[in-house]
Structures are given as structure tokens and as C-alpha cells.
């Protein structure tokens, strides 16, 4: 006997992701899924963003790592609410891990929640966690061919930060080829070149964040 199923393999995960989204919507919190390779600068971007939005927008952070509290400790020094998830081996966050973590974050006190995913360009793109926007951080030393090697990640991105742009003179990274590859996959995505070391482009990035937070307010 054949039974029709017609259900996504990740449908259980997607259902919990939808619950997470509804909770965030109810609390009026904009949630951003931060994805990148290891070492691209996820935590540095979050730290720059916290300091740039200080006095304007309250930020909370969920840190995802396979092991350790190193990143959460760095964030905690900024006096913002932070919760560390250790996946203990899994290479991505899933909706259920985030659901548990959301209980540990004072959602009534924050406007934006950054969820730093595991450093990985593959499966982090496949597991929905309930966030509103996908931020992908690339960096110059990784090379400009990454969009073509990891197409799904660049297809799901709402905004891409190209970090470490100050290293351009020491690299053969081709910004035009990069933009062309990205736009081919995803014509709506915004690409912003930044450097967490020099501060280049950070204002433009903060502008994007503020715009999204404002849109969220209007939807409330």
C-alpha cells in the first residue's frame, strides 16, 4: 500500500520555527540570523552593532557554538542580555534549540535579537529558526568564489556584509566578480562592504539595521 506524505523532511523543525517567529512578532522583537564561515567576523559585527546602536536600540544576543562560552563572554561585557547555546557537535542551530534559548532572553526589554549561528556556510542555511532576516557575513580572505560554491546560503540572504575590506590590497579578492555572482543568485540582497577593524562601512550597515527595526515597529 502506498501512502501519500508530501511533507518536507524538515517540517517538524519548520513548525517550531514558526512558533518562534510568532513569539518574536508578539514581543515586537526583530530577529536576525547571523551566518558565516568560522572567522569571518560574526561576533565582531555583533559587537560593533551593539556599540553603534547604544542609546537608540536595545539589543539581545543568542550565541551558538559547538563548544565554549568565549563569544557569549565577549558580548556580556557590553552589558546586553546574552545566552549561549552549545550544540555539542551539531553544525547548525535548529528551531528547538532557539525555542529554549528564547525563554532565557528578556524579550520585553529588547528591540533586536541577533542569533549567531554556528560558523558554517552549508546547513545553517537549511534549518529555519524563526528569525525575520538572514545576515550573511563574508570576508575578503575567504575569496570571491564562495557564492558559487555555497549557493543556498547566498540565495537565502537578505543582506551580505563583506568584512575585512581593509585587507583588499593584500588579496586577489575581486569585488565586482563577487557582486556579480551574488546578484545572479539573489537580486534583492543588499551587499555592504565593511571593516570591523577600521570601521569602514559600519554606518551604512547600522542604517540597514535601523531601517529594518523601523519597519518592524510599523508592523506592530
Amino acid at each position, binding site marked *: 500500500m502506498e501512502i501519500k506524505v508530501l511533507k518536507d523532511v*524538515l517540517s517538524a523543525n519548520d513548525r517550531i520555527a514558526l512558533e518562534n517567529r510568532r513569539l518574536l512578532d508578539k514581543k515586537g522583537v526583530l530577529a536576525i540570523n547571523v551566518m558565516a564561515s568560522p572567522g569571518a567576523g560574526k561576533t565582531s559585527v555583533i559587537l560593533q552593532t551593539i556599540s553603534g546602536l547604544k542609546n537608540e536600540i536595545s539589543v539581545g544576543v543568542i550565541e551558538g557554538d559547538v563548544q565554549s562560552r568565549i563569544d557569549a563572554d565577549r558580548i556580556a561585557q557590553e552589558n546586553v542580555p546574552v545566552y549561549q547555546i552549545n550544540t555539542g557537535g551539531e553544525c547548525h542551530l535548529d528551531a528547538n534549540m532557539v525555542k529554549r534559548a528564547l525563554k532565557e532572553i528578556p524579550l520585553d526589554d529588547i528591540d533586536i535579537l541577533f542569533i549567531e549561528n554556528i560558523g558554517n556556510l552549508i546547513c545553517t542555511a537549511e534549518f529555519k529558526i524563526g528569525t525575520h532576516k538572514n545576515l550573511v557575513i563574508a570576508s575578503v580572505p575567504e575569496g570571491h568564489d564562495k557564492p558559487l560554491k555555497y549557493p*543556498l546560503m547566498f540565495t537565502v540572504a537578505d543582506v551580505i556584509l563583506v568584512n575585512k575590506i581593509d585587507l583588499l590590497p593584500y588579496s586577489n579578492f575581486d569585488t565586482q566578480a563577487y557582486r556579480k555572482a551574488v546578484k545572479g543568485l539573489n537580486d534583492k540582497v543588499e551587499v555592504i562592504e565593511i571593516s570591523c577593524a577600521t570601521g569602514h562601512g559600519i554606518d551604512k550597515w547600522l542604517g540597514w539595521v535601523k531601517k529594518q527595526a523601523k519597519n518592524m515597529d510599523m508592523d506592530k
Partner: protein
Amino acid sequence: MHELAITQGLVDLVLDHAKRAGAKKVLKINVVAGELSGYVDECMQFYYEQLSKGTIAEEARLSFKRIPTQGRCRECNKEFVIADMNWICPDCNSSNVQLVKGMELFVESIEVD
């Protein structure tokens, strides 16, 4: 590593549907997988054997139907298969191409006793 979590989702889904149908044994699982869904058949098969052990689905055969990556040109509406990640419309040469197929990963049906 992510095949483990994906395969766990697959096993849960299959067992849920099989039990609801009152099945004694799952013989075959028909999976539809887009080229961009990013998993490896052999890897999924390996995890499947581990994760389904001791269940009514432990002897089921996994059958994969591959869906090629497909795009639609936003300029001229042409739909075409994207080979070798070449996101250029074959008719009008535009690179303004929307992804329409290739990301899916779902269970189409199961065959049970």
C-alpha cells in the same frame, strides 16, 4: 554532519505516517530532493540505517528523485534548467534570474505493508 539531523527528521516523519496508517512494516520511502538541497545520498542512507534500527521502518529502501535546479528569467519569463551554476537566461542573456526549483527536500510517499 547535517545529514544526521535531516535524516532524523525523515525517520520521524515516516514513522508518524506509517503508524497513523496502521502499517506493520515500511518497505520503501520515496524522497524528492532538489539539487540545491545540499545533502549526500550515501550519507543519508548510512544515517538512515542507524536511526531506523529497531523500528518498523528499519528495512525500508530509500529512493531519491532528483529535481534539477531551475530558474525563471525576470525579464522574459523563460524557465530553464541551471547547469553548472550558470545563472544566465539562455533566451535574453539577462542575469536577473529567480530560483524556482531545486531547494526542495520532502517525502512524496511511503510504501507499507
